[in-house]
């Protein structure tokens, strides 16, 4: 059986196990949240509810710590022209609840009111008023209820559980002179995503594996860099080191060596270029000296400052036959040299332009490959493609 078929079989088996056991064990293995955590704090109700007076309180002990629950009653009847939600009490949960976790809340309450009320439980911010509704119950004038429901804050739009409140409130109907008392007790949270849950244990395990590969924060809130990110960072570090090596090689050695070679070559070429002229000058000097020597002893003649004899008419008797030829050759060579210099300037300018364009491209390319701005895995794909080409090129031959 091929590795692919084996992998598919293992995946399907795990999927089947997760599906089969999810309904059997999810409810039985949940863990109760430790309410002794000091982040959970009781409040006495809304400040807007000024007419509310505390008429009694009850105390409950959770894990060795005593909590006080308040009982409220309105002392003066009021008339409301429109329905209005009134806060009964609030739990400041601080960071006790996790956004991603599925919770079960249990509590008991007793309501004694002179109207049919709507009991609401919501979760949100008391200051801004932003909240999400978790529970809604229409009750009669007097009720004792044991309440239990599941809720999750995930996808609620709330980005932090800091300074968030679990808010108990009632809606007072329109046109009612209200009078009520509210008594809350036996409040208890259960973490439905606890690791002792078999399904969630598997899901957490798979989540850890997935996030270890892909990177990110798993269901338990632990951050993993991820193998892909690790490889990418490794390649980036390797690339930086290789780049540093080539930069150092170029800047510290090759460029210096190239410049030295260029300087020495210029010196040698200039020496070689001047060598024939120097030899010719020496030969010319010799023949001039010889000419003057012969003339001096043969018969004195009148010489101009350059040593050329002057005829009877006062004009030079000799004209250099090579001067015009050399002038034409020098002009032609000068023309070629000018063209070559223009070509060299064109190369230098092109080099500057191309380097500027490539540096711009390089910056964009590096930005594309960087983890901060880039397309995920693009660098890996490009590197893989280049390595594949290299392997195919070398091995395929």
């Amino acid at each position, binding site marked *: 059986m091929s590795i692919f078929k084996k992998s598919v079989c293992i995946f399907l088996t795990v999927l089947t196990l997760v599906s089969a056991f999810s309904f059997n064990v999810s409810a039985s293995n949940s863990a109760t949240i430790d309410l002794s955590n000091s982040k959970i704090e009781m409040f006495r109700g809304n400040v807007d509810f000024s007419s509310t007076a505390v008429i009694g309180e009850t105390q409950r002990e959770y894990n060795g710590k005593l909590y006080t629950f308040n009982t409220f009653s309105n002392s003066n009847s009021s008339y409301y022209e429109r329905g209005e939600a009134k806060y009964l009490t609030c739990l400041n949960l601080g960071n006790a609840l996790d956004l991603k976790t599925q919770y079960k809340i249990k509590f008991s309450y007793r309501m004694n009111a002179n109207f049919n009320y709507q009991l609401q439980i919501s979760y949100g911010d008391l200051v801004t008023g932003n909240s999400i509704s978790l529970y809604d119950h229409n009750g009669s004038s007097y009720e004792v209820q044991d309440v239990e429901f599941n809720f999750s804050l995930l996808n609620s739009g709330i980005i932090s559980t800091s300074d968030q409140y679990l808010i108990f409130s009632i809606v007072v109907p329109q046109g009612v002179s209200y009078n009520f008392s509210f008594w809350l007790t036996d409040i208890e949270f259960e973490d439905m995503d606890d690791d002792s849950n078999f399904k969630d244990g598997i899901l957490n395990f798979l989540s850890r594996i997935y996030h270890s590969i892909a990177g990110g924060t798993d269901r338990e809130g632990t951050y993993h860099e991820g193998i892909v990110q690790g490889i990418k960072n490794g390649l980036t570090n390797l*690339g930086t080191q*290789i*780049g540093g090596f*080539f930069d150092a090689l*170029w800047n510290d050695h090759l460029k210096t060596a*190239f410049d030295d070679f*260029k300087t020495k*070559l210029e010196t040698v*070429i*200039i020496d070689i*270029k001047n060598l*024939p*002229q*120097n*030899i*010719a*000058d020496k*030969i*010319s000097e010799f*023949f*001039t000296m*010889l*000419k003057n020597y*012969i*003339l001096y002893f*043969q018969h004195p003649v009148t010489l101009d400052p350059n040593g*050329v*004899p002057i005829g009877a008419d006062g004009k030079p008797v*000799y004209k*250099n*036959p*090579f*001067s015009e*030829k*050399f002038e034409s*050759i020098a002009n032609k*060579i000068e023309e070629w*040299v000018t063209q*070559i*210099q223009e*070509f*060299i300037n064109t*190369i*230098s300018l*092109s*080099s500057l332009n*191309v*380097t500027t364009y*490539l540096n711009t491209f*390089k910056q964009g*390319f590096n930005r594309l490959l960087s983890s901060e701005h880039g397309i995920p895995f693009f*660098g890996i794909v*490009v*590197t893989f493609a*280049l*390595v594949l*080409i*290299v392997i195919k*090129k*070398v091995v395929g031959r």
Partner: protein
Amino acid sequence: MVIIFYYVRDFFSFIGDVLSAVFDLIWNLIQVLIKSAEFLISVVGALPLIITGPVTVLIIVSVLYKVLGREGGQ
């Protein structure tokens, strides 16, 4: 008689001038090669590492492959 010395002197001067001018021309042609090398180096240096790195590796591997292949074929 004297003219011959003039002629010889000017001939060598001419040869010297011509050769000097030719070397000047050759030097300019060499400068073209140097500038081309500088152009090539600056272009390669401006390319992203992800291109120059694998190409460098490819060249090294190809050279090694050729050298080792040649030795193995003997």
